[in-house]
């Protein structure tokens, strides 16, 4: 697997050096100075296509290379998707200026319902108290009273509702999956929140005893799906987190809805297939402390996630 490097598109569009000898790639990856790159935001991608080289090669530390190899081994499918997105971007004649212009245009008038719910934490707490008052299972602070069989039935109801809302005929590329939190997973989470003197986190506070992920094929579909969700759940929406307009760390982009199902809250995440692939490449390497990753590799993953967003933006405006 070769390591492909290219600078942000404002440099030059990059040159695909097909058939690059392995020794050349090896020279790049082993004979690099540890000094920081003089280019603005060095940018990387992994592919079996040889080497994309901009006007200069980013300088990389050996540790960074090891991180990339690790990610490559772990996420071969994901990094191939990232590489394909970047290759597509180059083939479109993409350049930094036009992408930035389109991205600004998108953010000024996004197709999705924008803005996060203010004071969402307060709303969730209030809803949790309401649920706890109605239901002993939800007032439990240890998770021992969690009724998994009820969660199983509930998750199928949610899933069925989502299938009705987003029929295959209208959303042919949509992937939908729903989950019920497994008992031990729930107990670990609840007990973790109730460490020390604080023992007031209840099962009712959890917004993901039931959850769903909807990944659609485009930004336009994401906007349409989100609007349908908002119309369907209406005043049952406890909160919305807009990571599309305001991306999370490492470029995470999605819309999250916390909804009141009557006996619990649930979290419904909406994103696109490509953005999901980029997110999962970072999630388990950056946020799971058992699998550390260097800051350089984390930065490059964030950049790759942003790049996918740019490509999605161009597709949205038909710039292809």
């Amino acid at each position, binding site marked *: 697997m070769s390591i492909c490097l290219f600078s942000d598109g404002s440099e030059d569009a990059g040159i695909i050096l097909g058939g690059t000898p392995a020794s050349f790639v090896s020279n790049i990856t082993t004979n690099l100075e540890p000094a920081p790159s003089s280019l603005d935001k060095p940018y990387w991608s992994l592919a079996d296509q040889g080497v994309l080289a901009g006007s200069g090669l980013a300088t990389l530390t050996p540790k960074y290379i090891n991180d990339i190899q690790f990610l490559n081994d772990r996420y071969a499918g994901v990094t191939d998707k990232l590489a394909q997105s970047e290759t597509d971007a180059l083939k479109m004649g993409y350049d930094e200026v036009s992408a930035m212009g389109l991205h600004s245009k998108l953010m000024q008038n996004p197709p999705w319902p924008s803005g996060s719910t203010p004071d969402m934490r307060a709303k969730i707490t209030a809803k949790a108290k309401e649920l706890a008052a109605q239901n002993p299972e939800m007032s439990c602070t240890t998770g021992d009273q969690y009724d998994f069989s009820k969660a*199983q*039935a509930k998750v*199928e109801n949610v899933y069925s509702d989502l*299938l009705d809302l987003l029929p295959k005929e209208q959303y042919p590329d949509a*992937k*939908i*999956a729903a989950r019920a939190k497994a008992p*031990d997973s729930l107990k670990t989470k609840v007990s973790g929140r109730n460490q020390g003197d604080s023992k007031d986190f209840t099962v009712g506070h959890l917004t993901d005893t039931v959850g769903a992920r909807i990944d659609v094929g485009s930004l336009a579909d994401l906007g349409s799906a989100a609007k349908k969700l908002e119309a369907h759940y209406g005043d049952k929406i406890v909160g919305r987190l807009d990571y599309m307009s305001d991306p999370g760390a490492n470029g995470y982009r999605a819309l999250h809805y916390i909804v009141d199902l009557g006996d619990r809250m649930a979290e419904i995440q909406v994103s696109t297939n490509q953005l999901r*692939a980029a997110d999962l490449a970072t999630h388990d390497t950056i946020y799971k402390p058992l*699998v550390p990753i260097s800051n350089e590799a984390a930065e490059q993953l964030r950049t790759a996630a942003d790049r996918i967003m740019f490509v999605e933006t161009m597709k949205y405006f038909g710039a292809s």
Partner: protein
Amino acid sequence: MVTIVASWDAASGQSLIHMVLEKGVESDDARRARARQKVEELESQFDSSRVEVIYSVARSLDDFRSTDPRFASAPLVPPPS
């Protein structure tokens, strides 16, 4: 719709699909009971601070894999003989 029971080991990065049950083959209650039993079995085997057992429903196993790329190439554990 399929019901899926899977596991993810955050330390090793190993992801496994332990069970895939098609809706309609048996009653909904029986299907959920079998899946629940599998979840309980796995949770008794694994350290929950390291391994997450996942219970999901989706249109297909492919849809499940797409919405959680940790499982993109997760092998299907054969059922015990």
